[in-house]
């Protein structure tokens, strides 16, 4: 349930940033200590979720870190090309 909201969190942010929200998808891969969130967007939207000097991706990771602290779980964001 808690993991679910983090997946939704990434999806929600990505959809707000891109031009083609229908092509946003997030897959959650549960590990023992870490949950990997694989984010896929349209190729033309990659720059939107990464940002200049990776700043947007870094901001999403910061938010995941804060959300993860609450759940005592680490989340890793992988942006897949």
């Amino acid at each position: 349930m808690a993991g679910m909201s983090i997946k939704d969190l990434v999806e929600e942010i990505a959809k707000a940033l891109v031009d083609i929200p229908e092509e946003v998808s997030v897959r959650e891969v549960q590990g023992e200590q870490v949950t990997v969130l694989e984010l896929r967007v349209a190729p033309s939207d990659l720059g939107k979720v990464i940002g200049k000097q990776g700043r947007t991706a870094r901001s999403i990771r910061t938010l995941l870190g804060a959300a993860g602290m609450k759940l005592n779980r680490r989340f890793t964001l992988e942006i897949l090309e």
Partner: protein
Amino acid sequence: MSKRKYTISEHGPRIEAFLKRILQLAGLKLTFELSEEASPHPDFENPEIRVKFSGDDVSELIANKTELLLALEHLTMEMLGMPGEDHSLICFDANDHRMLRIEELRFSAVTAAERVKTTRTPFRFNPMNSRERRILHMALRNEPEVRSESEGFEPRRNVVIYPAGMPSSPRTAAPPVMRRGRRR
């Protein structure tokens, strides 16, 4: 005064909807308020919309040099599709932290400039983001005996204060090669 680009009536609803949803999904206990109040330091920072946070998790927003606060600010501005040159027009704050930081930077700029004047040696600040570097440059713009410059490459770019006539120290011309992990 030129016309405002960002107003609560036009952009407020999108900002509110986005932030509310994200704070809820992230499980952060925070509330926020939008305002258009005038800046007490209009020379240094003059946002058109302020977003002020309060609540149990304010300490998390402010931890690590306001990392989370700046992350939320950045994501909100990207969500609105704001071009880079508009990024000073919306300012996120909690416990007046950003406001106090401006005071702190102004004070450091003046103190460092005094030191440069007496010692005739350059003073190098820690790396800062562009908004903070700008505040340092602005604080020194009426000091004829020193000049300030930004050196190095993001995200480790930093301000250096030189005595007015002293040339800049030679630096590497190319940005450092990207490596895995952090150097230094």
